[in-house]
């Protein structure tokens, strides 16, 4: 009895663990635990968003007036700047004077913004600590920058990752669909039994090759080829990812759509041929329309395979977390981001949770794909009594 429900149980557990960690991201502030951002106590600015903080430190925002404050230019302060203001003696050999120094500095400079560990916060601190917003849904899904280790404020916009994933998968499916459908038609309708018996295991083999091996092959063959052909600085591009993923999606597309076409009732095909239609006419006028839902299921599952694929993409796409403008630029997908960054993300921290949130997105996408396929094939059954 328990064994019967083991898969359901696993799915439920996966959902619980994934979402517990993933949703935790919205409970966190983008400024790392143990750090504070402080202003002079006379500064009217009370609150800053993660993006504003980043823009300040990137010097894209240079005046407090842009943030609703006084029309003065912002003075940036990071811990390492301290020696510009105080001597080593004042700071002390073991930084015992540091809190005091920072306190005095903030108090003396009305336009300062300071970022430092909270252990250096003076007991009678005269500045004010800045309230930082928690990460919002809007920031997370609409943010255009993914830079989770940025100091002082992490940037967690998943938009480039989502777009990167869709971009690469779309390219993959555009490459794989014509090839895969042609092979499916060929195997189910044109080739004789002998050819079919040879082809089947070959397609299965294609499905069986591990994704690292595809990634490795892509890295040593396809990437240099793309670099040379298009004369690029690097060959690790979205295109390389699409090609590798396209190859990997082939078996799914072929197997499922071939199955669907083979399920076309013999009577239907015979009726067409008996009316003087050629075999080719029968294929595109009867077999393909009849099995169209199975064919779309194959295509959708192929996309699903591409979206979820990790290692091969990680190895060939160059992993730049920016919104791609062409297929000849490096891109980064959701799974590749998780694989590349989870190892360095401190357990339970903001980055860690953000990666789990990415996992949630991935999970939801694939769930959606599965249910769509299920829906399509159910509707199909109903249509054909």
């Amino acid at each position, binding site marked *: 009895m328990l064994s019967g429900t083991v898969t359901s149980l696993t799915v439920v557990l996966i959902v619980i663990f994934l979402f517990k960690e993933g949703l935790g991201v919205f409970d966190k502030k983008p400024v790392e635990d143990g750090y504070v951002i402080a202003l002079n106590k006379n500064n009217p600015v009370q609150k800053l968003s993660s993006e504003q903080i980043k823009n300040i430190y990137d010097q894209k925002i240079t005046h407090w007036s842009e943030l609703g404050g006084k029309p003065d230019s912002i003075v940036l302060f990071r811990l390492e700047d301290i020696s510009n203001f105080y001597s080593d003696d004042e700071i002390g050999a073991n930084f015992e004077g540091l809190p005091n120094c920072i306190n005095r500095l903030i108090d003396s400079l009305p336009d300062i913004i300071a970022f430092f560990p909270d252990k250096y916060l003076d007991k009678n601190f005269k500045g004010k600590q800045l309230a930082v917003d928690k990460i919002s849904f809007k920031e997370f899904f609409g943010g255009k920058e993914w830079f989770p280790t940025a100091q002082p404020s992490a940037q967690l916009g998943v938009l480039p990752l989502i777009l990167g994933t869709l971009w690469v998968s779309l390219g993959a499916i555009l490459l794989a669909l014509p090839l895969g459908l042609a092979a499916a038609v060929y195997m189910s309708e044109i080739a*004789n039994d002998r050819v079919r018996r040879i082809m089947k295991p070959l397609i299965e083999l294609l499905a069986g090759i591990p994704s690292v091996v595809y990634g490795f092959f892509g890295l040593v063959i396809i990437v240099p080829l793309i670099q040379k052909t298009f004369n690029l600085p690097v060959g690790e591009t979205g295109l390389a990812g699409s090609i590798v993923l396209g190859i990997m999606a082939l078996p799914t597309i072929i197997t499922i759509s071939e199955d669907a076409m083979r399920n076309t009732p013999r*009577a239907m095909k*015979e009726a*067409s041929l*008996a009316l*003087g239609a*050629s075999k080719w006419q029968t294929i595109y006028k009867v077999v393909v*329309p009849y099995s169209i839902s199975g064919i779309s299921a194959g295509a959708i599952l192929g996309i699903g395979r591409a979206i979820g694929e990790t290692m091969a993409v990680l190895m060939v796409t160059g992993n730049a977390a920016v919104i791609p403008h062409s297929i000849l630029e490096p891109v980064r997908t959701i799974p590749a981001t998780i694989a590349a960054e989870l190892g360095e993300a401190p357990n339970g921290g903001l980055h860690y949770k953000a990666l789990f949130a990415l996992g949630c997105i991935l999970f939801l996408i694939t769930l959606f794909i599965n249910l769509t396929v299920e829906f399509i094939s159910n509707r199909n059954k109903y*249509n054909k009594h």
Partner: protein
Amino acid sequence: MNKIESKDVNFFYGASQALKNINIAIKPNTVTALIGPSGCGKSTYLRLFNRMNDLIDNTKINGQVLIDGDDIYAKGVNVDSLRKKVGMVFQKPNPFPKTIFENVAYGLRVNGISDKKLIEERVETSIKQVVLWDEVKDKLKKSAFELSGGQQQRLCIARALAIQPSILLMDEPTSALDPISTAKVEELIYELKTKYTIVIVTHNMQQAGRVSDTTAFFYMGELIEHDNTKTIFTNPKIERTQNYITGRFG
């Protein structure tokens, strides 16, 4: 001249012989019924006339099948054109997953007719021919699956007629239908005889008696007897035919 003629036809599925030395001549504008116990080769024989058995791997035919005097298994014969001339209706209604109109238009389209008016005309006459027009004229754009089984079968006949064949092959065309639909199809066969040569496979003795001019009795791949339907049913020359018809073996 005979419309269809088969001379010493043997047919094999792989190594097993399904038809043995069949000789039959069929006159134009007649209905010929093929009867016999299950597995005796009726369908196999019928499907020789439009080369439908070509679709099955590992089959072999020898002997001659002549239609209008030409050997249809000769080299260089275009099978698509042959099938245009020899229409077929199957045991179970098998409309395409298309509209009623497109089902009938299908044969015209695949045979290179694109003149819209001509297609509409042909579709209408064909559907009228099978006495279905009044029932479907308002829903030609609806899926053919929405019709009843009997209507579907008549639609399939209309589909076959639209490309104006001269021969119509029917493999148990009423076995999936209710009595009323069956009666309609039988009536139709009787009327179509004036224009077409019809070969029909049936398990229903009364049906064979009602619609056919001649009847051929098959047994285990052999043609036992072929004669006027009346003769076969009232006065067969061979005892086995008699036994079959009177139901003494099945």
